[in-house]
């Protein structure tokens, strides 16, 4: 089952693809005949997806919610000591709100929650403002396409790649020695002392946020640029006839016309930065008080053994709960913008 050589891996890849193509082909072949009852057709088309989603998303989500209320405790004997069965400590699952109360009361976790709030508020605001400003600025200029592609490019780079790119930018050497990180070199040129960007609590979270803004701004720009271009010319002309120019035209005419798109961009980036753990994990590993919920989830679940699983599940559920209202708002705005079209 475990492929090792290059040939084996490629072969198993081709086989996997063929299996699924064959499944699709088989389903189509089986239902493509007259007088087949409608429900068989529907089941053929929707069965695989329904099974995949119910078994792979719904069932696990319910399981995680249940587990977030569980805590593993040692079973104590009548003498008040742990019970050992063939060298292993006997444990039991206890139901309760322990995991949640720990997350909200312990100082370390509180800091994680606070950092997460900073990410979810700052990344969308900064990325969207820059994206909007840039979309307006670049609109109908020469080289528009090339300039937009450059700003958009970080979207294609993995967050791991982006983190490494910025690790080079933030690199720190002692004051007085040659700096190899661009940020500290600029500080030195300005006559300032170099900063340990990734360790200077609490500002290090802000420097990590900048990386995420750098990644997401291109997305904001692309969507908002399309929205700006979709504003009808006659609205702009009418406003201009009424004497609106420059800033006034922008705030009173352009922004209200693209408001639904702005909201969709804000919420989408908020969700993205809520779930992303790659940047924190690659740049600081969550050290120096930079951890966020998504990163803490990973650390607790996969690095702390069984003891961390309950906390990890609770953290995942917290992610889920924060996302729900954001998405609902997002969907409503999408509907509105569709109606406007």
């Amino acid at each position, binding site marked *: 089952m475990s492929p090792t050589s290059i040939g084996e*891996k490629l072969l198993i*890849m081709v086989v996997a693809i063929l299996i699924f193509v064959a499944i*699709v082909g088989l389903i189509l072949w089986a239902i493509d005949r007259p007088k087949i009852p409608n429900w068989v057709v529907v089941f053929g088309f929707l069965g695989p997806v329904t099974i995949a989603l119910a078994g792979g998303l719904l069932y696990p989500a319910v399981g995680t919610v249940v587990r977030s209320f569980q805590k593993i405790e040692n079973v104590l004997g009548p003498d008040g000591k742990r019970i050992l069965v063939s060298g292993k400590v006997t444990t039991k699952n206890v139901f309760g709100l322990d995991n949640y109360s720990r997350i909200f009361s312990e100082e370390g976790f509180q800091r994680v929650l606070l950092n997460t709030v900073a990410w979810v508020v700052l990344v969308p605001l900064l990325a969207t403002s820059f994206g909007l400003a840039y979309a307006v600025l670049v609109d109908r200029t020469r080289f528009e396409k090339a300039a937009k592609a*450059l700003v958009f490019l970080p979207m294609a780079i993995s967050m791991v790649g982006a983190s490494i790119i910025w690790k080079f930018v933030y690199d720190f050497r002692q004051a007085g020695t040659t700096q*190899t990180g661009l940020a500290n070199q600029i500080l030195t040129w300005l006559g300032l002392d170099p900063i340990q960007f990734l360790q200077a609590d609490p500002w290090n979270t802000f420097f990590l946020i900048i990386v995420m803004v750098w990644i997401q701004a291109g997305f904001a720009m692309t969507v908002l640029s399309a929205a700006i271009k979709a504003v009808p010319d006659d609205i702009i002309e009418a406003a201009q006839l009424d004497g609106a120019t420059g800033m006034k035209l922008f705030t009173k005419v352009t922004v209200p016309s693209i408001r639904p798109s702005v909201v969709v961009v804000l919420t989408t980036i908020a969700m993205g930065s809520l779930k992303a753990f790659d940047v924190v994990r690659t740049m600081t590993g969550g050290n120096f008080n930079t951890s966020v919920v998504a990163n803490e989830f990973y650390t607790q679940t996969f690095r702390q053994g069984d003891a961390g699983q309950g906390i990890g599940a609770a953290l995942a559920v917290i992610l889920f709960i924060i996302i729900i209202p954001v998405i609902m708002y997002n969907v409503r705005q999408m509907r509105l913008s569709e109606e406007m079209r």
Partner: protein
Amino acid sequence: MTAGSGVIPPRIEAVDEQPVSARKLKAQMRAQDAKTKLSSPFASGVAIVLAILWSIPTLGLFITSFRPVADLRDTGWWMWFTNFHVTLDNYQGALSSSNGGLASFFLNTFVITLPAVIIPISLALLAAYAFAWIPFKGRNILFVAVFALQIVPIQVTLIPLQTIFVNLNLQNSFWPVWISHTIFGLPLAIFLLHNFMTEIPRSIIEAARVDGAGHVKIFFVVLMPLLIPAIAAFGIFQFLWVWNDLLVALVFAPSPNLKPLTAAVAELSGTKGTQWELLSSGAFISIIVPLVVFLSLQRYFVRGLLAGGVKG
């Protein structure tokens, strides 16, 4: 320049050869005016400067990866312009097996990505077709349910999924990664493809039906050619998502035999110590394929983005 100031903008070229009434000309000029208003050289300049600033971090990594070790340890990449040395040693070092061998992880990424893009597309095409063109009871509710599943964060599903894969004895193969990427990609794929499918005029489908075409014929002959842009849009999304993913890879492909580039490079970063030369070239190796794909297929990507296909 204010609207209707009477100065003909230099860009005006759409003046017909036939005589045009003064009023018409004025209206044309005004329209042209509004179109060209913002294209001042100043705005162009600022826009280009910002775009260049935005690219400097990436450029820095790119240059670093080609510098000799001695140079890049002691001086910043900007010194490369005065102290010009180019070498491919870093790439050799990162790819060769003596240093962790990114070449084998590159293969893993490739083997993970291709099925993880094709499988959800093939399954989602079936589902989207049913949702769009086969009437049945409860269709809307089911579609909304699928759409709503987009909100389930991956984190919530990982541990139970892992238990399932272990029970099926799949944990040492690529199947867990393929299956989970497929599952996580399906809701968006169905949503996107469904949106495109419903935009196809009903009359085309009905005409085909009248001609005696069954579901399969309609699917392949009528719909598929029209769906290529939508498939491309989702395909690029899923490709970038899978190729760049770290979380799923860490959880479901932890062994060196399965591990993709992102996880390997992230590891290089964590344990790097002083190996900046390997980190720079390694990061660039992991970036280059998505960059090329993105640049060559940007059009489809943007279209998918604007169709509401935004993976949260």
